């Protein structure tokens, strides 16, 4: 029975879950500062440090600008995967139990959480885009819209991944594993810091299966006008990953134990 009331109630539930995530995000200042600071550090230290000796000669852009799209993706990778796995905290402090005892389906909980994660990523990316303007990266309104689309897609996929991992884990020690085995590989293998055209084969294979590669490439295309794949391919692969990881996340939430 889908009347307007039940639709409103459905959106109220998603809104409630989203609202909670956004409020917590703004109140947990340390998370916000840490996750914005790290990308900036990379942009300025690695960007300027390597930039003084390296330039991406084929494309004639300086190294700092070259890695700017990669740094945006870095911030999305970190914030999204971590956001997903913060569900371990929710479980530890029983907040999750209080949500699960409400008449809310697991897929609704998953959706609300994912929207929360995407919002967090978008806020961080906005800060980086402003920094980008300051260091001289220019983008048109169209490029801005395209950037937001790519960022949301990548964030959806990786928040789903984080939530999936978090739904299986019970201890906070698992966090360290997520950093070592998920966050760093996703970032380093994406070509965020180097061009992906002339890589040794083993590395090239890993780069090809990393979804972040396609987001980095898409943003380079959009912001700098230099990409290795076409924008269409990038978008297609990201959509595919988003669907697959979203489905996996929903499935994992359905079978997640409440207590």
């Amino acid at each position, binding site marked *: 029975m889908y009347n307007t009331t039940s639709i409103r109630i459905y959106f109220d539930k998603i809104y*409630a879950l989203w609202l909670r995530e956004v409020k917590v995000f703004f109140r947990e200042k340390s998370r916000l500062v840490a996750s914005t600071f790290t990308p900036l550090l990379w942009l300025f230290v690695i960007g300027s440090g390597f930039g003084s000796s390296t330039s991406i000669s084929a494309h004639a852009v300086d190294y700092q600008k070259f890695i700017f799209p990669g740094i945006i993706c870095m911030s999305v990778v970190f914030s999204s995967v971590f956001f997903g796995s913060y569900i371990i905290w929710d479980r530890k*402090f029983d907040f999750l139990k209080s949500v699960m005892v409400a008449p809310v389906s697991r897929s609704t909980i998953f959706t609300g959480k994912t929207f929360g994660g995407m919002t967090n990523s978008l806020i961080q990316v906005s800060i980086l885009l402003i920094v980008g303007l300051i260091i001289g990266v220019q983008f048109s309104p169209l490029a801005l819209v395209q950037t937001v689309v790519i960022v949301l897609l990548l964030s959806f996929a990786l928040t789903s991944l984080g939530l999936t991992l978090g739904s299986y884990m019970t201890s906070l020690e698992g966090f360290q594993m997520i950093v070592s085995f998920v966050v760093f590989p996703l970032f380093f293998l994406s070509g965020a810091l180097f061009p992906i055209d002339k890589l040794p084969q083993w590395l090239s294979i890993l780069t090809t299966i990393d979804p972040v590669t396609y987001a980095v490439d898409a943003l380079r295309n959009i912001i700098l006008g230099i990409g290795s794949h076409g924008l269409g391919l990038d978008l297609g692969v990201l959509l595919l990953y988003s669907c697959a990881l979203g489905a996996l996340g929903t499935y994992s939430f359905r079978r997640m134990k409440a207590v």
Partner: protein
Amino acid sequence: MVNPSKNQLIQIRNLTKRYEKLIAVDNLSLEIGQSEVFGLLGPNGAGKTTVIHMLATLLNPTSGSATVNGFDILEDPEKVRSSIGVVFQVPSSDDLLTGYENLKIHALLYGVKPDVREKRISAALELVGLTERKEDQVKKYSGGMRRRLEIARGLIHNPKVLFLDEPTLGLDPSSRETMWKYIQQLVKQEKLTIILTTHYMEEADMLCNRIGIIDKGKIIALDTPARLKSMLGGDIVKLKLKQDSNTDALKNLECISKIESVDGYLLLSVDDAKRNIPEILKHVEVESVEATSPTLNDVFLKLTGRPIKEQAEGGFMERYVQYDKH
């Protein structure tokens, strides 16, 4: 399916939960009626929380089932959840949010209609005495205030049944009394059925009109507090007799149901000790006399051979302490 022939709000049928070797809840059957305040009284690890988790559809039973408000916990879990409020053993509100925000989020999750939402939130805050503190983050609340906020949250959608899992555990005596006051007020104001668990005798005695004593996953006694206590044969009168006092006369007194001699004292099971002591003292010469009414602890002791007390390995206190650092 609502079954109108029975007035029982909760029907538990052969509910069992097994963890590997351990049977946490053992073939439990129980019915709880409209407007009861039902107490599940038992020591650490008795299975109280497990029962509540199963009734709240958070945990699937190994076998058996139950209906809550006419909805089957296995077939209609979402409907069960809409009609109950649950206050967990460990407070579960979000520390970083204010009391008001926690209630608002839950009101939305429960689909409380927009036109009554604010009114219900204010009423719930008022009921638990947190109106003044509603804009404070929960991390600034005391333990007792957190518990009260949980109760407000449990009531936000006007449930028919409220589950309270150890509502006063870890509270100091004065906060505990405050909590009792609020619970009693709740019973008076709202037409609620309450199921509460506790391992405090006085708490069950004071709040509940029916008590199930649970031990090792089984209900070992089920009755009103008064009748449970009278199971022990009334009050105990403890006499220290004067040398060579003759006790034969006591055997003929109707008010005495049992006479025992322990450690040089004479223990009498007496019906209504207050009124009958003068009569007893006419028949024997005593140095001292002491009368005690049985407690639920005595009931538990009689049924199981051990007293109810918090066991060191309870684990709950650890969890409770950990809880403070979000």
